[in-house]
């Protein structure tokens, strides 16, 4: 679809007189950098231009009609993403400032009162802190375990493949299932304490009954569940490092430890950035593991933002719930900036 079909004035680049424009849908000066993966491709394009030029006489109306199919191919996605992601996302910014409950038929503008009330009643700052702590711990768990497993299972021999598929199994379970398994293991007389008391006789501790250990447990279980996926992303990243680079480092006398910190880790930065931000951002929206293990307790020690949002929603406080949703969005946007930077860089590489 060219800008003509949208009714906008054509962009400067498109105002080039038609007889000067090569008879190709994307004149060379319009091709963004990312569509030119290598030096050989522009040459290929020249031959296409000639081929194409002989067959279709160059006329601008023809161009927009020829490219209209692109809109038709994208339209199902544009509508579905627009209605079920874009519109709710934009609407949420407004909903957060509405006085809107199931107890009243009138919806009025409330200004900041949803946030002020949440602050005064203690369910704004506390869930933010809980969510951030949860997300950081879960992110660290996923990435330390993921990178560790990837490094340990790097070569891809029979043993490596077997353990890779074993460590991937928790990824397949729903976070709820993971939560129930570990909630059982962490009971006062559960399996974890049985093992600890083999070292410290008579040891018994209610891991999920203590506010601090409950939060740590819930976050680590979430990290445990997803670490297999982070492992695979790191394995892919390690596989992309050319073996010649590693060989060169070996010849220079670098030990395994040195090779990892000074050669492999810098080359793993793309996978690292991707994993760190995706796992962090994903953990901001976590709810399943919390619901399965503690239901937000003890007290409100593990009430992450989404759990609080569900409480407000079930109580019919839709404006208040939207306000908490907006808080999650803000948390994500703050941390997503590095990821967007990464996406841009990736775009250039393509």
């Amino acid at each position, binding site marked *: *679809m060219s800008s003509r079909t949208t009714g906008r004035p054509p962009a400067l680049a498109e105002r080039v007189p038609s007889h000067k424009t090569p008879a190709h849908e994307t004149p060379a000066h319009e091709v963004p950098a990312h569509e030119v993966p290598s030096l050989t491709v522009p040459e290929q394009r020249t031959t296409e231009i000639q081929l194409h030029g002989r067959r279709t006489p160059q006329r601008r109306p023809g161009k927009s009609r020829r490219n209209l199919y692109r809109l038709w191919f994208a339209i199902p996605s544009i509508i579905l993403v627009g209605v079920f992601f874009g519109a*709710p996302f934009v*609407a949420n910014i407004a909903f957060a400032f509405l006085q809107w409950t199931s107890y009243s038929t009138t919806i009025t503008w409330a200004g900041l009162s949803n946030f002020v009330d949440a602050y005064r009643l203690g369910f704004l700052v506390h869930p933010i802190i809980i969510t951030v702590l949860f997300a950081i711990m879960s992110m660290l768990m996923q990435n330390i375990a993921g990178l560790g497993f990837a490094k340990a299972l790097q070569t891809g021999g029979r043993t490596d493949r077997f353990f890779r598929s074993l460590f991937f199994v928790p990824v397949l379970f*729903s976070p709820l*299932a993971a939560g129930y398994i570990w909630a059982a293991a962490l009971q006062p007389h559960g399996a974890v304490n049985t093992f600890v008391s083999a070292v410290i006789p008579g040891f018994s501790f209610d891991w999920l009954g203590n506010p601090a250990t409950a939060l740590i447990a819930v976050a680590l279980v979430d990290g445990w569940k997803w670490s297999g996926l982070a492992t695979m992303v790191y394995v892919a990243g390690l596989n992309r490092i050319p073996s010649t680079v590693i060989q060169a480092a070996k010849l220079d006398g670098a030990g395994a430890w040195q090779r990892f910190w000074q050669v492999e880790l810098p080359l793993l930065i793309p996978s690292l950035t991707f994993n760190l931000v995706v796992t962090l951002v994903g953990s901001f929206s976590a709810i399943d593991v919390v619901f399965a293990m503690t239901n937000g307790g003890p007290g409100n020690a593990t009430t992450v933002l989404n759990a609080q949002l569900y409480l407000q929603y079930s109580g019919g406080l839709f404006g208040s719930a939207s306000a908490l949703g907006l808080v999650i969005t803000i948390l994500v946007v703050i941390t997503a900036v590095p990821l967007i930077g990464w*996406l841009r860089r990736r775009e250039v590489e393509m």
Partner: protein
Amino acid sequence: VSTATATHRRERIRVAGVVRYVILSVVALPWVVLPLWLLLVNSFKTQGAASVPSLAWPAHLNILQNYAAVINQGAFFTGLANSALMAIPAIFFVLFFGSMAAWSYARSTSRTMKFAYYATSLSMILPAAIIPTVYILINLELNGTRIGYVLTIIGTRLGVVIFLSTGFIATLPASLEEAALIDGASKWQVYWHVILPMLRPVLFTAAILLVISVWNDFFYALFLLPGQSQATLPLNLYRFATTSTTGVAWNLVFADVVLTGLPLLIVYLVLQKRVLGGLTEGSVTG
């Protein structure tokens, strides 16, 4: 002498391999094996024996009763049918619409299309705005319906497929498509016979990620499917586990976890080589 050192070295490599295997097993034991054992063995116990869930083999097997309870009271097959009825079409349409749009986005230089592409890619990272989603579904008279849930899942998961596929198509020269068009193929034929086959590995990788996240989705199901008859497997599991009046019946919860996890585990057992290959050789990250 040289053969002696060679044998010696081979012996050392073999020992190192065994040591590595042992270390990995020691890590895998508490990481995967014992949690799964805990799950399985307690799903065989009576409620009393499982009230303190231990790793011990049950003195009295209660397998049939537990699993029958999950299937009957836990409405397991309703959940399974709902999950299949919603997750499979959702995943199919995400892959189908996503790959169609990706072709357009990768080849278009129009600013409108670029904007649509970037906005769609953002949906991978930004969280769901669940309250307005419910509001929109109410206004479309789709709230609490399977179709409303499926449409929401499609709209919020298209981003992954479009991002991975657009990046992949952009690296391919357009010559193949153009040759097909010159030969008189329609746009649809080009998509079906040229673009889709080339995209297969990317779509396979995307499908793995989609299956894991859509099949196990709890968040959207919790908000969008309040009715019991539409509940998916994870929602079913949650309700079954929380409605117990006399503490947690670990034996029944675990039997439900086993049954709920079984469909994906079976698929994984059959396809594990391709799944792990798709994740490590695919284009998940740059």
